[in-house]
């Protein structure tokens, strides 16, 4: 097992290097000058601009800049933001909790809803329940996240006025009332992500159950005289969960992408909202760090998925 994990980690590390290199290359080769906003400002003469350029190291060729960036990034230093002139890592650390809160909660709820629905759908295949669940999961992954969000805002925030439209990030939980306020403002963004994720997970759980149900070990369990409940919940579900666990880990990057949309829709100032504003401001250091962090998340969760798969299914380890 240790060998298997080690092999996976050894694949993951070069992957991250290549990805960071690719992102850096795209950013550097793209036309557009990060100091363009200074060029328009008459208060900053050409000589000052040249000075800033050397200070930031922008006069060096990009492979050199990449090597420097990488050396610093490995020590946790992602440079300084052009827009706010504060360390990128500080800005990201400020924003990370908001994103993790909404995304993490949404994912947990989605898993808690999707697995039971998938189980019932598979056991009662083609029943009314299954057909309704199937229909809704198709609806769930056909609707773009921003559209779900707009409908929820229209119905629950504008017409019914149950939840606030705009997320208040400065809210601190000090009392029961502020806690309720926090829950209310998280409700809509979390729901959007839950709709998106539940749909896919339900289908995966159902199809994995359907793969397992006709197998011999299920017949054996039934032949031993075990109750239907025990056969399904103990034997079939635990085996069906193996591929689903992998998909849960692999789905985490998707939900972060979904968070980019919801954060812009509800004005949650998390990482996704930061990415959009930084791209629009040509704030290259922040964009680079954020894209790289999304890459790290993707690669890390791929790794987690691989390791979990190896733990749960011994056949994979010796493949």
């Amino acid at each position, binding site marked *: 097992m240790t060998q298997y994990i080690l092999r996976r980690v050894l*694949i993951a590390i070069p*992957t991250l290097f*290549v*990805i960071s290199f*690719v*992102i850096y290359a*795209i*950013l550097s080769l*793209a*036309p*557009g000058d990060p100091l363009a906003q200074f060029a328009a400002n008459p208060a900053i003469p050409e000589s000052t601009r040249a000075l800033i350029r050397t200070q930031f190291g922008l006069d060096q060729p990009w492979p050199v800049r990449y090597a420097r960036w990488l050396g610093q990034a490995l020590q946790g230093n992602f440079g300084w933001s052009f827009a706010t002139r504060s360390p990128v890592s500080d800005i990201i650390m400020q924003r990370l909790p908001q994103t993790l809160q909404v995304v993490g909660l949404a994912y947990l709820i989605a898993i808690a809803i999707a697995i039971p629905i998938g189980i019932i759908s598979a*056991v*009662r*295949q*083609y029943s009314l329940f299954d057909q309704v669940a199937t*229909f809704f999961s*198709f*609806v769930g*992954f*056909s*609707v*773009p*996240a*921003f*559209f779900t969000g*707009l*409908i929820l*805002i*229209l119905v629950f925030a*504008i017409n019914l006025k149950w939840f606030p439209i705009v997320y208040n990030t400065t809210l601190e939980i000090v009392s029961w009332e502020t806690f309720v306020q926090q829950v209310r403002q998280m409700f809509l963004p979390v729901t959007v992500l839950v709709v998106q994720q539940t749909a896919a997970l339900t*289908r*995966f759980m159902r*199809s994995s159950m*359907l793969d397992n*149900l*006709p197998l011999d070990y299920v017949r054996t369990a*039934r032949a031993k005289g075990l109750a*239907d409940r025990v056969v399904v919940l103990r034997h079939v579900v635990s085996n069906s969960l193996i591929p689903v666990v992998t998909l849960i880990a692999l789905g985490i*990057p998707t939900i*972060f*992408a979904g968070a*980019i*949309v919801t954060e*812009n829709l509800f004005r949650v100032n998390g990482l996704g909202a930061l*990415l*959009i504003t930084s*791209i*629009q401001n040509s704030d290259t250091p922040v*964009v680079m760090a*954020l*894209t790289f962090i*999304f*890459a790290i*998340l*993707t*690669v890390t969760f*791929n790794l987690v998925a691989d390791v979990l798969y190896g733990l749960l299914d011994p056949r994979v380890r010796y493949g």
Partner: protein
Amino acid sequence: MSEANQALDANVTSNTATRLQQLSSGIATGKPRTLLGDAWRRFRKHPLAIAGSFILVVFTLAAIFGPLIYTKNRDALDFVNILVPPGSPGFPFGSDHLGRDLLARSLYGGRISLAVGVVAMVIAIGLGTLVGAVAGFFGGRVDQALMRVTDLFLALPIVPLLLLTVYLFRDPVTRAFGQVLGIFIIVVTMIGALAWMQSARIVRASFLSLKEKEFVEAATALGVGKWPIMFRHILPNAFSPIIVAATLQVGTAIITESTLSFLGVGFPPDTPTWGRLVTDGSEYLQTAPHLALIPGGLIFLAVLSINFMGDGLRDALDPRSRL
């Protein structure tokens, strides 16, 4: 015995009965059954897939011929009729904050959205098929290298990268090809270039098993070259999963494009793609909700139809897999 098993048994009995019937009367009815005919018979049993295909045909025809029949100018301003609700005289879908006709804009937007979906799908599937076919057919080192590249692409953060590349390369490409065509080219290429991995895996898996079959051996013995064997002999046998993946890919590409437009990084502000219309409309959510709901509903309906059609095709062409 569980319900699942009972259902299975019932199925088998009915199947045997029909087969017996076919055996006794089949020769009399004459017509031979074709693969395509079988697929169509299975597809027909899927009411939602039929409904989805019908809606898609209507949408496609509307996108192609709609602007020719409904000739109202999509950019004409009308400050007398600002934000009128759908169904008003002269404005079947209502109008926006500048009095522009939403139906004319939605028809034109459908053209762009559907074209983005189809072209991005062609790029993604073409690339995926090529990579998968080469990897699966040649195996060994080639396979390892290509699959490593595939894994690398799977680890890329797709949405941030799309936002980034479209934003960064927007200016030079639009200068070279014009506003709308330029953005169309970047959006479509980037969506295609970041979405081929799944089809590559599917095609590789089919090729790995198909290349060991006797008909490949026969073709090799007859002296057929490697590339003709790959694309003339093996590929047609791997079509079913590719067609299903291609269908679903169109839906994903439409959603991705509309998300980019929604985040303000897609087509220029005055180009009425469906995603862009939703973004612009979302500012009038309180006073004129139809502005966001109609184009959003069109995206949803188009993608839902595509997904149902893909599901029907999967049952029809690839009966063993189920998702």
